[in-house]
């Protein structure tokens, strides 16, 4: 199994070994010795770690997080990463995200539409190391392609694709292969895996920009 990034460890909570990061607890997760358990059933990135996907993360990276929602996952990311830009479109979850951001000085919350990168390109710096994407809208490959402008040449895209957001009627397999195909117009897919064990009809993808 690939190594976990610095700042992410497997720790024991009540005798159960679980993924964990160090930071202020956010959503009532179990804590021990300043570490907080990271529930892979509530986080696609958590599931990618849990399933042993090679994210290439080492810790301390600059991150652009698309689809931050109420901040559950991005709170863990900010715990082990460097500057973290968190983009979310809906006001309601962004209220919670603000709470999370207030206690994390390198987490920058942005109420923006991930489909319109020009509305935050004056804030998010160039050459970020990682884009984490978890947006539940149609055109998920397109969102990844549009945001490629932010990613460093050797950066990583960590993408969770939700089949139902693309097409409720099509089979997840056919959705995933369509997404992969679109994605390959701008990215090289390094690894992809169904997240079934933790998230129904989701595909996890690790990719890097095409040269």
């Amino acid at each position, binding site marked *: 199994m690939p190594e976990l990034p610095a700042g992410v460890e497997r720790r024991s909570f009540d005798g159960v070994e679980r993924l964990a990061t160090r930071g202020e607890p956010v959503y009532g997760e179990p804590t021990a010795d300043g570490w907080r358990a990271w529930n892979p059933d509530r986080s696609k990135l958590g599931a990618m770690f849990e399933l042993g996907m090679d994210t290439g993360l080492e810790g301390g990276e600059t991150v652009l997080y698309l689809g931050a929602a109420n901040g559950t996952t991005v709170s863990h990311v900010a715990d082990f990463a460097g*500057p973290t830009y968190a983009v979310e479109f809906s*006001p*309601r979850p*962004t*209220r919670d995200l*603000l709470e999370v*951001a*207030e206690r994390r*000085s*390198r*987490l*920058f*919350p*942005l*109420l923006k539409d991930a489909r319109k990168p*020009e*509305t935050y*390109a*004056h*804030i*998010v*710096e*160039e*050459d970020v190391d990682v884009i984490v994407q978890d947006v539940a809208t149609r055109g998920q490959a397109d969102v990844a392609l549009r945001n490629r*402008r*932010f990613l460093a040449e050797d950066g990583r895209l960590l993408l969770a694709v939700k089949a139902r957001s693309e097409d409720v009627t099509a089979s997840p397999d056919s959705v995933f292969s369509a997404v992969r195909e679109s994605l390959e117009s701008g990215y090289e897919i390094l690894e992809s895996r169904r997240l079934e064990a933790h998230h129904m009809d989701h595909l996890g993808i690790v990719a890097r920009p095409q040269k």
Partner: protein
Amino acid sequence: MSGDGWFVGTQNDRLERIRYGSAAQPADWPTLAIESATDIDDETMYYDRLHEATVSATRAAVQARERADDNQLIHAIRALKDCRRTANELAERLSEWAGTVDPEAGTGIDYAERLIEEPPADCPEPMISLATRVVDLAQQAEDLEAYVERQAPVVAPNLSALAGPVLAARLLSLAGSLDSLAKKPSGTVQVLGAEEALFAHLRGHAPSPKHGVIFTHEAVRGTRLEDRGSAARALAGKLAIAARVDHYSGEYRPELEAEFEERMATIRARADEGDDKTE
């Protein structure tokens, strides 16, 4: 301002820029900021300022977007009214029709529910599905009411606390927006919706209106006739203030309710004194 980083200008400019600015491409903003901004000397300062600015600007943006939800609320309360009205109209049609096969045919939504559960003998199939449409529409009205009850306190916390979510939404709907309601004087708030009642009156459905939609508020409706004017004035006054607080600050101020309660207690005391005298 396209192409410039978020950090150009004054603190206020920066917040505006974060909300409304844009750039075609990202750049090495930290380095550019350290070079150009007088209050940013190094990377640590850059990220500290960025954190501060994004949290503030995003909080304001969230508030603004949620406030724009007054529009959603207004559409929801109008749809609620339509659904309730059409449910009743179709229930009336159903009731007339069902009377041909069910001598004990009742009226209203309740009867539609009963008919679905226990269709009368010789009841044609479309009659049962019509009953289903009636029940669905009534349920839709309930769902919309639940939505209004959930959203109104977010959009207009003070107005909702004083008026209740449904009346708050109706006032917003009559005014057209929270912005427009916040700009109306108390006297206008007092008679908002009276046009409708007047219409109903002219069609012979209702007595001549003495108040607008705030008449549905317990403080007005539940007050004896002689004091209703005072109660309506007091309520409208507080509602007008509540709308302004909701629009301009958005903060919940429970003292508004307390003040109104106090005022109502005075009005009621007057009524009790009056009663004492007449006894």
